[in-house]
């Protein structure tokens, strides 16, 4: 038709492949062919445009363009839905489908529509400007339009009043700053308040600067000890104790009697805190019996103060060698104390807060403890290590050296302590030490139950027993947690029979047919049964619980 001449012109100019394609199409249907030809490729169309005689092209183009756009809309609405890039690709595929048959084209269209339908929302969002306008941003814009008139005046108003005040005050304040004693601000209440605010604002930076200096000093010391911190708390404390004593000796040099009293009292405090389990060391000290709690406090304070001084200057220890040796003997006990218990720190911390020398405190806090038997054993081990470690350093005379050596010894001792602790005592999440059930009991029970299970070979290996112990530990942890929760829920502070009965019911250990009593008769010896029967509650409480349940149901 009208397109034929351009097509005829096109082949020589454009690629050789086009003319054959187009000609068959022309024979089939002109309109389609036109559309296809126009859309074949933008390049091709552009070239054709360029090649066409100028006068003719606009008319033909215009005539062809009209039908093209219609065609395109009819053909692939889905294509329009998509982005332009995608649309072009789709067109390409659609064109080929068209080539096959109109039905194929329709099918293709349906396919594309379906594809688009699979994710209509996405496509719409990407394409349509409406929804973009509906985005939160737009909502905010709308809000701003609504609020703008109001907000604009509001914003200036607060600022407005302030600046004038500031301006008025500034001269006055400057004067005040120069001479804070002026009374003007005080006369007007608001002015006075604001001055306070200003002062508060001004002050913090100053204080912060001071604190920073202190902190830096602290951080230096902390770094030293932090190297082996966790094992260290004990070590560091121990080392502190030694330092403290040596410092006190230095004090002694300055003040003979006062220093000695303080020193003795501090040592005694350590002793008192610890235990009487170390009789030899304690007996060595004369002042022990004379100690009173007040003396302890005084001694501790002095010791800490002296510590601070000692830390600053390491010269002192060197001056009195004999004192140092003594100090080491003395120091042993405090370390043990510290090692044994870290939990009691807060009490000491309070005392320390009162002291002027606070920074030194956290590490050398001696703890008041009543160590258990096991801990005593541990302590003994620790003491031995300490003695070994501590004996060499006195000759060196330097406090720092002593500290380091002591720490090393402490590390070794700490490892031993850990091993020893793991054997028996564990610590619950509440920080309370607890023993685990004796292995013998568990083994006996487990063996008997294994027999009941029909396993003829009842011997349990050590690994198995360990696993069972672990399981029973977990069991007790879980059960105690639950019991505590039940008690708390009931508003009780003590765990009651009702709690365990409830728990067993929830564990499905007891049900309608099995009561805790029947189970107890099965599993427990008579003595314990008697204890159980001494206490009526289980059945009664069960009855009550049932009543409660009934009441709840009624409600």
């Amino acid at each position: 038709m009208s397109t034929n001449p351009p097509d005829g012109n096109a082949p020589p100019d454009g690629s050789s492949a086009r003319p054959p394609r187009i000609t068959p199409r022309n024979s089939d249907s002109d309109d389609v062919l036109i559309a296809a030809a126009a859309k074949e490729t933008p390049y091709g169309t552009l070239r054709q445009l360029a090649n066409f005689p100028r006068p003719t092209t606009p008319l033909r183009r215009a005539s062809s363009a009209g039908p093209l756009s219609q065609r395109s809309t009819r053909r692939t609405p889905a294509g329009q839905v998509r982005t332009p890039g995608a649309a072009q690709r789709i067109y390409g595929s659609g064109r080929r489908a068209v080539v096959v048959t109109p039905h194929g084209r329709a099918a293709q269209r349906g396919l594309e529509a379906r594809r688009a339908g699979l994710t209509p929302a996405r496509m719409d969002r990407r394409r349509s400007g409406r929804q973009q306008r509906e985005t939160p941003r737009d909502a905010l814009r709308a809000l701003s339009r609504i609020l703008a008139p109001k907000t604009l005046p509001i914003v200036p108003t607060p600022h407005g009043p302030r600046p004038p005040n500031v301006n008025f005050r500034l001269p006055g304040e400057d004067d005040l700053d120069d001479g804070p004693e002026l009374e003007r601000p005080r006369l007007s209440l608001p002015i006075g308040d604001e001055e306070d605010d200003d002062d508060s604002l001004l002050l913090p930076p100053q204080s912060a600067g001071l604190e920073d200096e202190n902190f830096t000093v602290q951080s230096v010391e902390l770094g030293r000890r932090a190297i082996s911190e966790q094992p260290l708390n004990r070590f560091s404390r121990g080392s502190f104790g030694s330092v403290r004593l040596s410092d006190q000796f230095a004090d002694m040099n300055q003040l003979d009697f006062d220093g000695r009293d303080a020193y003795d009292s501090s040592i005694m405090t350590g002793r008192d805190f610890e235990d009487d389990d170390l009789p030899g060391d304690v007996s060595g000290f004369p002042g022990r019996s004379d100690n009173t709690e007040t003396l302890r406090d005084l001694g501790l304070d002095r010791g800490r103060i002296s510590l601070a001084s000692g830390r600053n200057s390491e010269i002192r220890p060197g001056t009195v060698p004999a004192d140092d040796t003594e100090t080491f003997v003395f120091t042993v006990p405090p370390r043990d104390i510290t090692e044994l218990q870290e939990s009691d720190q807060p009490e000491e911390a309070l005392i320390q807060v009162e002291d002027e020398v606070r920074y030194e405190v956290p590490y050398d806090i001696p703890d008041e403890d009543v160590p258990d038997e096991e801990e005593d054993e541990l302590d003994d081990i620790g003491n031995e290590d300490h003695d070994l470690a501590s004996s060499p350093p006195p000759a060196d005379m330097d406090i720092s050296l002593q500290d380091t050596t002591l720490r090393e010894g402490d590390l070794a001792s700490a490892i031993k302590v850990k091993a020893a602790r793991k054997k028996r005592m564990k610590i619950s999440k509440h920080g309370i030490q607890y023993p685990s059930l004796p292995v013998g009991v568990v083994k006996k029970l487990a063996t008997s139950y294994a027999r009941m299970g029909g396993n003829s070979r009842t011997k349990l290996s050590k690994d198995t027993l360990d696993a069972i112990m672990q399981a029973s530990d977990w069991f007790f942890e879980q059960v105690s947690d639950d019991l505590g929760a039940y008690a708390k829920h009931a508003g009780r502070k003590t765990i009651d029979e009702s709690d365990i009965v409830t728990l067993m019911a929830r564990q499905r250990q007891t049900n309608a047919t099995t009561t805790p009593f029947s189970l107890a008769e099965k599993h427990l010896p008579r003595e314990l049964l008697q204890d159980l029967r001494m206490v009526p509650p289980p059945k009664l409480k069960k009855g009550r619980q049932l009543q409660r349940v009934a009441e709840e149901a009624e409600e």
Partner: protein
Amino acid sequence: MAAGQKLYPRATVKKIVKAHSKRNVTKNVDVLIFLDYALFLQTLMKEASINAKQAGERGISAKSVKKVTEVSFLIEVQGLTTTSEYVDEVVNKQTPPVVEQQ
């Protein structure tokens, strides 16, 4: 049951529960708690022996015990989470500041 002279140290059980729950324990609760423990141990051993037989082991190995332990604890925990009180407890519970020194 192995009655023996003493089935278990009552004080120890009390201590354990007290340490974990941070609550006091009334006089004879430990008996029931131990009963519960005995039942637990029974099921544990039963399951462990079943597991061991399935695995073709002789006797009961630590492995089978551990497997059974995991399963039983999962069940227990699940039961716990469904209990409203426990959930409340968990919600309200404050994590202890410093727990383990080991």
